[in-house]
């Protein structure tokens, strides 16, 4: 609360500073107040539209993230991710989240497409705030996962094996990867 109050005071003195708006949004996100967080991240994105595209893109993803956490607003979520892609198509994060969105709905072909599109834009500089992007490996993960369901099993097998040898993969993802590789070994 002390951090929130301190940044709130900074904000009141300069409410049109986009970076202060984003910091205030981040503080609200930390304490679970997604609605307030959305307000300030959206302001930051708008204020930076012509000045700092990567930061603005990050803030649009933050507006998506708040309602992703709240749940039950799927059309809004898709719309915000599409907004982010339309604004800065050469970043991978929004493609990943759309891929996950569609794989959750078992719309494998669409999910696979977004994973492939995201893989075109790897090795980008990290965004200033966390937007639930664990790394480029997650696009490969999605491609392997969804490819299995759309007739690309050989490619899927190769990707699971490739992923199992990669570093900096979060443990919960590596558990799934290793499990899949083990299953593939049992099949063959």
């Amino acid at each position, binding site marked *: 609360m002390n951090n929130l109050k301190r940044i709130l005071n900074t904000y009141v003195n300069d409410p049109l500073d986009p970076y202060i708006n984003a910091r205030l949004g981040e503080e609200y996100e930390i304490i679970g107040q*997604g609605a307030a967080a959305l307000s300030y991240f959206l302001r930051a994105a708008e204020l930076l539209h012509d000045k700092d595209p990567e930061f603005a893109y990050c803030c649009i993803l933050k507006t998506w993230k708040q309602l992703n956490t709240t749940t039950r*607003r799927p059309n809004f979520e898709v719309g915000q991710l599409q907004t982010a892609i339309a604004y800065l198509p050469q970043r991978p994060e929004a493609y990943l989240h759309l891929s996950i969105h569609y794989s959750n709905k078992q719309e494998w072909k669409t999910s696979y497409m977004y994973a492939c599109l995201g893989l075109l834009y790897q090795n980008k500089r990290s965004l200033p705030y966390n937007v639930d992007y664990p790394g480029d490996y997650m696009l490969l993960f999605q491609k392997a996962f969804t490819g299995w369901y759309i007739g690309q099993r050989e490619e899927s097998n190769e990707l699971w094996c490739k992923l199992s040898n990669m570093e900096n993969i979060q443990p919960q993802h590596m558990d799934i990867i290793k499990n899949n590789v083990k299953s593939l070994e049992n099949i063959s």
Partner: protein
Amino acid sequence: MIDNLAKIAINNGGFISPLIIPSKHTDGTGLCNVSLFEEENGDIIANIRHVHYTLYHSEFNQKFNCVWGCLAYLNPEDDIRLLTGNYLCKLNPNTLEVDTYQKIDTSKNDIKPIWNFHGLEDVRVFRWDNTLYTSGVRRDVKPNGEGRMELCEIEWDKKVCIEKTRDRIEVNPHTYLEKNWVPIFDMPYHFVRWSNPLEIVKINPEDKSKEKVQNGELDIISCETVIHKDNKIKLPFGLRGSSPVIPFGDDGDRMCITHETHFFHHPGLKKDAHYYHRFIIWDKDWNVKSLSKSFKFMGAMIEFCCGLLVKDDNLIMSFGYQDNAAYILKMPTSLLSELEWEDD
């Protein structure tokens, strides 16, 4: 116009605090439109409105509209109702942050809603004759969304926080919507219904009747206009109720904060709005003594104030920011004379 009252306040001896109900109760959706009351022992209590949606409001260059445009209520997409719940809180006397909170249990008087705005909206909390009340507008009992002010007696202690009674205030002649009537703290059972020109109504709690509606029965009380001025001040927008009316100064004056709304359309016919507030001071005979220039609390397009107190030498004001966040602002009363006023 004053575009940032909070900045003036915090740079001249005041402060601002966020008002928070933990997200485990709200899923992080909006908290707003806080009302305030000072108990006889000096405790400050507040009602915080929880709206169950997140408001999406693109305020600047319209480059990042969401799928529904620049202004959208992000309620659950599988449930189009706009739900309101209310939390009664005790505020920390030093920081004015929320110390304790309890959700008002309205189940005793609820009937199955039949319109999409559910609950008592924009509640003001106060005591009249030592009884704790909330008042606000309810629109969920008739199929056309007809809204009426309701006066509700609240029982509140450490164990319970329940709405004991719910009386719907009927008006004559009939209207579609009555909202933002603001209680006059030192005149029990009186509300300011309109501010410009002034209309004060007195409700008649003893004049009870029943009204059958589709899903139940309503307790109705009547009201009558007791003061009606005809000296309308020429302003660009109508003055609507915001904060309750409170005694002010030593000459029998009274003060409140009003709001006004400027609706407009962006290219493409997307509807949008600016909300403004003003201080208004009446003399003891309810003649307008002073009217401030309009102001914003923190510069957002949508802000809404429901709370005003004078405590020691400070004004304490509470307001919602874009329906998504709630704040309380302390400002030395002496700063009022440095604001811009219509009669300057």
